[in-house]
């Protein structure tokens, strides 16, 4: 694995473009800035084309002989199928409003990371083969032939987009770069050019129901470990159930919350909350993944992976689905599910069994975000909270890209944090809410071999955290996405040491006063609460 430069070296970002024009500047695969090729076993597991051993560093990518026809035919088919793509190919006027909005352009200085130019990598081929002007005038009108070098360039730069859609927010035409990225990755899939970090989780999820490939007994063992840990801290044994038919609600969260640090503390927060309000819910060892890495590779795969949530809800006979702190899951649910696998008319319109609130916005998808659910509980005074139990933390909130830009979930997490923490500080306004800066590792880019690019892409986010760290002493970065919880810790360690990462429901779990609990001396991580050290010494 490539070594990562020191922060002061990496922070010297050169935004001067190369001397050669962009069409004449071939891509260089520099270690630390790209992802490993997908292993054949993963492609075979899901029936994707051209499984083989290869590496992006190789000269020969072992493409099928007719690869060019395959791609152009794939593009033709998609232009017909997705009117959005046709529109995005035709409408861009290259105004440049998006250029400096991309975290990868800010952090790398590479002009091909300007969203306009990234899209142009595809658009130039579209123009050459699908427009009259391009067919006749070629390069004069920005058209170029599809060559192996172009394909390599697509692979490199469309896996340097996290599908965060910050650029789209500033585009006067609303061009959705995430869709362009997804569709270009689809084209790459047709000839077997995909990355291991996406196809591994996709194949796992297809087989076991979650990205990690946890089998039912492993999933259960991990949740039960969380139950033990909760008992150590609170003295109360919570009792989650698995695959229980007839439960009112099915709860689905990313498998990262069950397995990975610090996600497991967020998981504990959910379990504590559900116990305390007496929720009639079940976990599923089959629908054991909120995330959908399918949405990082193709519409078809996104649909296939999303379907299991609803199939399981139907099988168990629940009324509706409650979804955990996941990022891109909510883009899939909120913007695709209804026309992809919906309408889920076998479920009921979600109503909180505790407050009676109807979640009107989830009327069609039947799936409610845990932050809406919890904020509603707090609003109705249903939770006894002691925010002093988070007094050792100075918290800021990173709006995870998809809940913010794809579903407008901006107030609920803040409302919760302000009720469970006494010390909350916002980052500068052009870096939060709809304008939030990506963690730099979404979209399936969170593999270790891509670390330099991740640290570059995460630089604008880290910079905003550094601001509140220095100004207010912020030491905890809250978020509502499992990729965030996995990737922000190394990002913070690199750019802003001293800031740790938490899910919002970990903070809820700390503050929630449970009936019959023992006096809490530590938070869910086992760190002493403020003042507790002194008490012990007294």
């Amino acid at each position: 694995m490539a070594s990562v430069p020191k922060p002061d070296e990496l922070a010297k970002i050169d935004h001067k473009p190369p001397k050669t024009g962009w069409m004449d500047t071939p891509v260089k695969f520099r270690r630390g800035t790209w992802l490993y090729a997908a292993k054949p076993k993963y492609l075979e597991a899901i029936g994707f084309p051209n499984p083989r051993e290869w590496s992006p560093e190789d000269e020969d990518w072992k493409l099928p002989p007719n690869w060019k026809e395959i791609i152009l035919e794939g593009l033709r088919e998609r232009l017909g199928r997705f009117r959005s793509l046709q529109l995005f190919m035709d409408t861009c006027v290259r105004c440049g409003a998006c250029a400096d909005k991309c975290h990868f352009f800010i952090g790398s200085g590479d002009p091909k990371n300007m969203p306009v130019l990234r899209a142009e990598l595809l658009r130039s081929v579209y123009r050459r083969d699908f427009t009259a002007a391009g067919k006749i005038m070629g390069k004069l009108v920005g058209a170029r032939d599809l060559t192996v070098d172009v394909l390599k360039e697509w692979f490199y730069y469309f896996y340097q987009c996290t599908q965060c859609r910050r650029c789209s927010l500033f585009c006067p035409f609303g061009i959705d770069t995430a869709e362009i990225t997804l569709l270009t990755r689809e084209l790459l899939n047709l000839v077997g050019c995909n990355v291991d970090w996406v196809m591994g989780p996709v194949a796992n999820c297809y087989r076991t129901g979650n990205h990690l490939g946890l089998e039912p007994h492993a999933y259960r063992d991990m949740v039960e470990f969380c139950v033990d840990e909760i008992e150590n801290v609170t003295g109360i044994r919570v009792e989650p159930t698995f695959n229980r038919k007839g439960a009112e609600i099915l709860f689905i969260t990313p498998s990262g919350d069950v397995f990975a640090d610090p996600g497991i503390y967020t998981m504990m927060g959910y379990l504590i909350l559900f116990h305390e309000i007496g929720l009639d819910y079940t976990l599923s060892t089959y629908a054991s993944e909120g995330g959908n890495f399918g949405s990082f590779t193709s519409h078809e795969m996104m649909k296939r992976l999303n379907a299991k949530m609803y199939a399981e809800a139907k099988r168990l006979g629940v009324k509706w689905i409650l979804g955990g702190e996941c990022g891109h899951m909510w883009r899939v649910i909120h913007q695709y599910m209804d026309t992809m696998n919906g309408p889920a008319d076998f479920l009921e319109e979600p109503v909180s069994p505790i407050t009676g609130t109807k979640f009107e916005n989830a009327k069609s998808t039947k799936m409610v975000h845990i932050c809406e659910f919890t904020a509603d509980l707090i609003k109705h005074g249903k939770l006894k909270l002691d925010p002093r139990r988070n007094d050792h933390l100075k918290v800021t909130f990173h709006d995870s890209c998809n809940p913010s830009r794809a579903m407008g979930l901006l107030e609920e997490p803040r409302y919760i944090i302000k009720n469970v923490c006494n010390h909350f500080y916002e980052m500068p306004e052009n870096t939060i809410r709809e304008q939030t800066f990506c963690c730099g590792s979404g979209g399936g880019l969170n593999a270790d071999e891509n670390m330099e690019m991740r640290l570059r892409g995460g630089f604008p986010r880290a910079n905003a955290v550094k601001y509140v760290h220095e100004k207010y002493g912020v030491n905890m970065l809250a978020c509502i996405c499992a990729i965030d919880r996995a990737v922000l810790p190394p990002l913070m360690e690199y750019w802003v040491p001293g800031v740790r990462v938490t899910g919002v429901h970990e903070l809820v779990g700390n503050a929630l006063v449970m009936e019959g609990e023992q006096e809490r001396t530590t938070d869910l991580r086992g760190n002493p609460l403020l003042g507790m050290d002194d008490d012990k010494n007294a």
Partner: protein
Amino acid sequence: MALVNLGGIEIEVDEDGFIQDPDKWNEAVAKALAQTEGIEDLTPDHWKVINYLRQYYLEFGIAPMIRKLCKETGFSLKQIYDLFPSGPAKGACKIAGLPKPTGCV
């Protein structure tokens, strides 16, 4: 994928040196993998971690959660890093012959 000689047998490893067939793992392979991680001698403390990882993997098909690993072996995360400088996943799991976890991790 590269074929390398580890502890006297030919084994397939991925780009980061993780073995691809966990069934081929044995103590000699572990020692050879440790060398690739810059660990010259595997002490009883190393083996305590490796054996726990191995046992958990055989039962559950995945590595244990890091917090569970610490609890069950009695080592703090810092001690695990002292033993395996690349950390529990990239160091200890690799030597124990476990595959890399993927997804939101």
